């Protein structure tokens, strides 16, 4: 073990106390900013994934063969009972439900509204589509109540309908004829987003079957405990599906939403990279100055036989020492800030109200930062990575010192 070299590197960091302190502070501030950005990125990813999933898409969805290409709501699963059973046995499953969709016209008096009606399992649906829990008036669907419907506030207003009103639902039946059924409004949902409210129309699964004549469910939707496990869960589920039914992720179902999320992520990462680049240049400048000041010393080291590799290692070891101190400062500065935003969140209500809908997803206006065990390794990796990268050129410069020239110049 190169103990003397290690002592040499560590002690060298303290030679110019003011410059070292400024470098450490710079690394610390950079780490804290990067930590804050990363925490908010993770919090936003979590929020987007959660709101996306609970806005109806789920994390995983089993769809009939051919649905991906046509997105035809009339398609039904080959064996939804088997698919549901397979989804329920996945590890890390939080909730599973089944749905069947149909394009319908709702009418009351002279008012007509086209909507996508969703037939659901009233027991499990609120666990996967949480906005139906926001029943402003009335109640949600009950298992024992046939011929009932829950609609969004905007639909009720467009129909000029109210609780207990009977509305007419018309859809294209299995044979191509127009089929109709009377439904009684038992609940009116208000999410705060008119756009979103205009799309909510839920009935029991058997009511959709009755109206369309199409038996069974069109999808099995699953919510996972951890959205990051989506791809792994799909890989497990896919081989268990029968008769050509397919498992899709929320990203496959809402590619526009996922794209928007990726775009946001890329923008945040870009800001992080800019922050780190500034820190990196600062550290590189300080390290280069330190190497230039010690040119004679490096010449002597070379003269006593120190090769280029040990010299590079020495300078990088000094950088690691700086990085360690910078990481400590970064954690000291960043932890309280990240903790605060993980608890209180970053509130965008002033700019976007209580929420807005994007691609059928209601985005919540408060983003909570992520606070977890990842913080320490992240800060250490950023600090060490930045200082090592920043010190590569100074280290190379030191290793290239020509001892004869440097000693001659010094004399």
């Amino acid at each position: 073990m190169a103990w003397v070299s290690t002592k040499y590197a560590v002690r060298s960091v303290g030679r110019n106390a003011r410059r070292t302190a400024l470098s450490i502070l710079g690394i610390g501030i950079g780490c804290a900013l990067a930590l804050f950005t990363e925490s908010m990125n993770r919090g936003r990813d979590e929020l987007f994934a959660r709101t996306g999933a609970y806005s109806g898409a789920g994390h995983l969805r089993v769809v009939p063969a051919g649905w991906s290409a046509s997105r035809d709501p009339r398609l039904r699963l080959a064996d939804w009972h088997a698919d549901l059973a397979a989804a329920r046995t996945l590890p890390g499953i939080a909730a599973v439900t089944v749905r069947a969709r149909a394009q319908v016209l709702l009418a009351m008096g002279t008012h007509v509204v086209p909507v996508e009606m969703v037939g659901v399992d009233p027991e499990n649906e609120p666990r996967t589509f949480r906005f139906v829990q926001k029943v402003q008036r009335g109640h949600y669907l009950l298992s024992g109540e046939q011929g009932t419907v829950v609609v969004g506030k905007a639909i009720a207003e467009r129909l000029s309908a109210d609780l207990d009103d009977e509305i007419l639902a018309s859809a294209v039946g299995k044979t191509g004829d127009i089929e109709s059924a009377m439904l009684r409004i038992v609940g009116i949902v208000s999410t705060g987003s008119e756009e979103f409210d205009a799309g909510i129309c839920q009935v029991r699964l058997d009511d959709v079957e009755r109206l369309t004549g199409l038996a069974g469910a069109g999808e099995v939707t699953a919510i996972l405990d951890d959205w990051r496990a989506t791809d792994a869960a799909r890989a497990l589920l896919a081989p268990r599906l029968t008769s050509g039914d397919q498992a899709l992720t929320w990203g496959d179902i809402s590619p526009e939403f996922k794209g928007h999320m990726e775009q946001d992520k890329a923008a945040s990462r870009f800001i992080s990279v800019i922050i780190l680049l500034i820190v990196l240049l600062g550290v590189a400048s300080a390290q280069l100055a330190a190497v230039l000041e010690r040119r004679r010393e490096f010449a002597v080291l070379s003269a006593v036989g120190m090769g280029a590799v040990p010299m590079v290692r020495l300078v990088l070891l000094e950088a690691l020492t700086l990085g360690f101190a910078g990481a400590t400062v970064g954690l000291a500065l960043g932890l309280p800030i990240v903790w605060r935003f993980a608890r209180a969140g970053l509130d965008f209500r002033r700019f976007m109200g209580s929420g807005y809908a994007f691609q059928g997803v209601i985005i919540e206006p408060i983003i909570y930062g992520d606070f977890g065990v990842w913080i320490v390794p992240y800060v250490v990796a950023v600090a060490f990575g930045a200082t090592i990268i920043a010190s590569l050129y100074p280290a190379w410069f030191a290793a290239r010192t020509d001892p004869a020239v440097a000693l001659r110049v010094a004399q």
Partner: protein
Amino acid sequence: MNETIITTRALTKTFQLNKHKVPALRGVDLEVSEGEFLALVGPSGSGKTTFLNLVGALDVPTSGELTVLGRRVAELSKRARADLRLRSIGFVFQAYNLVPVLTALENVEFVLELQGVGSERRGRARQVLDELGLGDLARRRPNELSGGQQQRVAVARAVAARPRLVLADEPTANLDGENAETLMHMMRDLRDRHGMTFVFSTHDLRVVAHAVRVVTLTDGRVARDEEKSGEAPHEILPGVGKVPGSAGA
């Protein structure tokens, strides 16, 4: 007959300063045998430091032949030259050049660590310091040592790995008379006990008094090359004053 460890034939070194070529060595022919205690003397700009740098494989000659410890320096890669210095050549500089953040012991130990010496390196470093009477200074850093003490530690660092050749560039230039004497006795003693070859450049007549062989460089050439046999230093250094305190002074 001792083995020849340095051979130079028509050795030249020319530096390019801006657009001008400045010759530092203009054809040096010299042979140095193992165990010699050789002083390089001459006025400033005569090529002493350049010669030491070439022999120490810090630099490569412009032309001519230079063989050090059986290796032709011009043919060695940078890495091979570093390895030659690490394994076989010790350096002592005018300005001591100890690593300021390491103690005396660690400065000596550092060279052994570079050589890849394992767990016994601390013991060996301490042994060298004790041998040179520096044991009490082991835990001190260079800024806690006098100039003479620093230079003695520098010698300890140079000889810690028992190199066959030790090169010293004006080792006593920053020392007072007493410290210069002590240093020269120490180097001479090392040469006598371990058979190391010492080549040092100097202006200092007190140092020359200790040399067994004195090579005078003038204008990049060997002007005189004499084995001392009891002569006073002033007799072998034409144009240089007598050594204070020496016979006849």
